């Protein structure tokens, strides 16, 4: 297992290098490259640009620039963010916790509800709830994320929901932007601010995963070991969760890891709409301001996280399925 982990880690290195080469090449086509923000400044003359180019080493061949970038990136120097006037690493890492909070909350919601929906649909196929789960899934992956966010905002934040039921009046009005209220910041306040962004970001995955969970659980329910467990007289829920769930989870783990790149895209949209102070919003601003170092740092970091989670998913697969032997 340890050998396998080390080997996979070593295999990830050429992948990461290839990713960074592609990204570096693409960003190199940005007019002006890292000096792009200065190009529009009327106070900076062409001679200044030439001097800056020389000083930053931007007049060297591209591959030398790449190796110089790579060496610095590995040692923790992610370049200078021209729009923040801080090191790019600082600017990114400052925003990372907010994004991770949003993403992990969405993942937890999507996994918990996706599993529950999927299991119920698998246990009671062709029932009303099964049709609901299937329809829900189709809406999930046909939904434009930003529009879903706008609709949530319109319904729950701009207008607010006012319900009268059982003699009680419920007012449901969630905050539509930011991580905390200006005066607040306690746990409940933060939780309230999470509701709409998390609902937006988890919607797609929840829908997809409930469908995968259903298919996977259905397959497991028809296996012989499940019948054996039932024949031993074990209670249904024990069979379902102890024997069924662990086996049914295996394909879902892979799907979870595979949907991570889409989650970064979703986070960009969600953070933009809900004014969430995370990396995604920083990325959009960096793009508008042509902040080379920040863009590069963001892209490499997000791709790196994707590679890392794919690796973790492979390892989790081995833990869930003892038939998989690593050597």
């Amino acid at each position, binding site marked *: 297992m340890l050998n396998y982990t080390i080997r996979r880690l070593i295999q990830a290195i050429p*992948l990461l290098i290839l990713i960074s080469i592609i990204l570096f090449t693409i960003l190199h086509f940005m007019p002006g490259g890292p000096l792009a923000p200065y190009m529009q400044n009327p106070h900076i003359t062409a001679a200044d640009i030439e001097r800056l180019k020389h000083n930053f080493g931007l007049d060297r061949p591209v591959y030398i620039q790449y190796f110089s970038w790579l060496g610095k990136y590995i040692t923790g120097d992610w370049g200078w963010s021209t729009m923040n006037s801080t090191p790019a690493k600082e600017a990114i890492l400052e925003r990372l916790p907010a994004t991770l909070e949003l993403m992990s909350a969405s993942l937890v919601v999507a996994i918990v509800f996706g599993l529950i929906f999927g299991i119920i649909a698998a246990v009671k196929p062709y029932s009303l709830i099964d049709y609901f789960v299937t329809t829900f899934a189709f809406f999930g992956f046909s939904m*434009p994320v930003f*529009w879903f966010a706008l609709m949530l905002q319109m319904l729950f934040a701009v207008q607010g929901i006012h319900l009268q039921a059982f003699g009680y009046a419920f007012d449901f009005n969630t905050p539509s932007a930011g991580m905390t209220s200006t005066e607040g910041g306690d746990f409940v306040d933060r939780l309230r601010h999470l509701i709409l962004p998390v609902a937006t970001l988890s919607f797609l995955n929840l829908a997809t995963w409930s469908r995968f969970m259903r298919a996977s659980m259905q397959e497991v329910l028809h296996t012989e070991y499940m019948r054996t467990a039932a024949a031993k007289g074990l209670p249904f829920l024990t069979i379902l969760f102890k024997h069924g769930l662990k086996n049914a989870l295996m394909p879902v783990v892979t799907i979870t890891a595979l949907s991570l*790149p889409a989650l970064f895209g979703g986070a960009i949209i969600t953070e933009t709409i809900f004014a969430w102070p995370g990396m995604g919003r920083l990325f959009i601003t960096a793009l508008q301001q042509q902040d080379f170092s920040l863009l590069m740092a963001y892209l490499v970091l997000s791709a790196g996280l994707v590679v890392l989670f*794919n690796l973790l998913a492979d390892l989790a697969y081995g833990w869930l399925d003892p038939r998989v032997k690593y050597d």
Partner: protein
Amino acid sequence: MAQSFITEAIPRPPHDLAHEDEFVQERHQTWRKFKRHRLALTGATVLILLTLGAVFAPWLSHFDPNAIDAHWTGSPLAPGQFGHWIGTDEIGRDLYTRILFGARISLTLAVSAVIIEVLLGTFMGAVAGYYGGIVDSLLMRVTDTFLSIPLLPLLLVLTGIVAANTSKASLNFASIVLIIAALSWMFVARLVRGAFLSLREKEFAEAARAIGSGDARIVLRHLLPNAVGPITVQATLDVGNVILLESALSYLGFGIQPPTASWGSMLANAQENISIAPWAAIYPGLAILITVLAVNYMGDGLRDALDPNIQ
């Protein structure tokens, strides 16, 4: 018994064009199975209507998609006012007309991007799957690399850079199509590779090789026809994905530029006006949702219809 022995002994591709009758019969069966999937049929109908709506847009509305209504005085006109069925946007342009014209952009952009993407992905996958070995591992490394980079950020960066490099401030239609296609061929490539890895070992491929067919002929005449089913399904689903991608891109301001109506760009200004003009936020998004839903249901129906294991 003897007959079945003979047919088994002479391997031939299931989709060999020499057996026209069988081919036609199978097509009938596919259509029969597709018809049974009611939601898929509904999806296909919606898409046909939408295509007709996009083609005949100028005849289906008496408004100009980019004209500002003379009655507009600064706030969006509500549904029903001055003949605007579903109201106008924040600067007084008819929403219904803009959605119709937006369908032209969304549908043609998605279909052209998917055609290019499928050609590219099929080529990559076919080469990797047919030749195997070092070519295969090299191409699959490239595929993995592209799959590891989050799509939307990369797409945004590329459109930003292409826009900055062209003298025009805005991106044109063709470059958006090419950029999207260049970043979404990977799933088709994986699919075709997987199919080819097993197909090339089949007896009919071996037979074709034995009678001296060249690589190109084996790939195009014998292997590819047997992978058309899954490719069609993937392509259909990708049309939906590209519509979503383009709308997100335009919404964020990096896609189709104003004043051209695209469903995504129509929503770009909707957020600020959401409390005074909710209709401007609702309908363009609804158009996206319904279209992509129709595409996905159709793809689901095609998957069932083209699956030989489902009767």
